[in-house]
């Protein structure tokens, strides 16, 4: 039981961060605008959550220009993917344990 709880990752314990990681798990990369549209939150909100994930080493940021417009791409790192999967597994295990048999 203790083990399971320790796998629940505080870094992902927010709806926006959860969303960002979910998108980056199934897409090679995503840009700022599409993340914003998918999650339906404000620029500043997304930026601060990405910064938090970046600090943890879970996402990388690539800035480039497409048609002379700045474009920012985000990718999940290997560690990010591994830890997020652990986080999902931990939640699933926790729910399984608390509801023994249906």
């Amino acid at each position: 039981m203790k083990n399971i709880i320790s796998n629940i990752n505080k870094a992902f314990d927010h709806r926006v961060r959860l969303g960002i990681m979910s998108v980056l798990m199934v897409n090679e990369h995503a840009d700022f605008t599409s993340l914003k549209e998918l999650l339906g939150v404000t620029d500043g909100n997304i930026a601060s959550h990405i910064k938090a994930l970046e600090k943890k080493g879970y996402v990388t940021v690539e800035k480039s220009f497409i048609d002379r417009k700045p474009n920012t791409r985000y990718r999940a790192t290997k560690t990010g993917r591994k830890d997020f999967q652990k986080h999902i597994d931990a939640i699933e295990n926790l729910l399984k344990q608390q509801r023994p048999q249906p």
Partner: protein
Amino acid sequence: MENEKYVQDLSDIKQMMNRSSRFISLSGLAGVFAGGYAIIGAIVGKVLLDGHNSAIDSLSPASMDGEILTRLFLLAIAVLLLAIGTAVFLTTRKAKKTNEKTWDNTSKRLLINFFAPLISGGIFCLILWQYNLIGLIAPAMLIFYGLALIHASKYTFGDLRGLGYANLILGLIATQFLSYELYFWAVGFGLFHIANGIWMYNKYDRKNA
């Protein structure tokens, strides 16, 4: 309660993964229409062939009539264009209703992954025609269409995978029964489409309609 929050988290994760990687505005009704066009196309094809006393089961060049092949080719193109046109129209309409974008990363990815195998198949069928291996064209269409659907199913509703495998297997079987290939073609592109379209329409569209 903690528990509920985690249940909500899991469903958020799943929904976000799907919405960001799969194109979900595809209309089930489009499949029904495509199937209908295919059956009409097969009937017209049969009439054309009977009128000409030709058969398309032949693998030998001498027995084929060039003019009828051109007509069948145009017929097939017409069916394809009608099906695609209807699909685009219905899908755009559905996307508007549910406030989703029609042209975004998910739809681009879906189209690329659907058309890459499909266009290769189309070119391959033209090559079969070039070498007069007419009998193999209908089975090859089914096989390549099946592969295209299996490939595309990763980028939209997973339900397309079943339709893909069904067409693929049907195409392979059809290679062994060349005199019945028009019927196989009508079953694959017609009946299977309609069945799958109705299934998808009931599952995804009806509650929004």
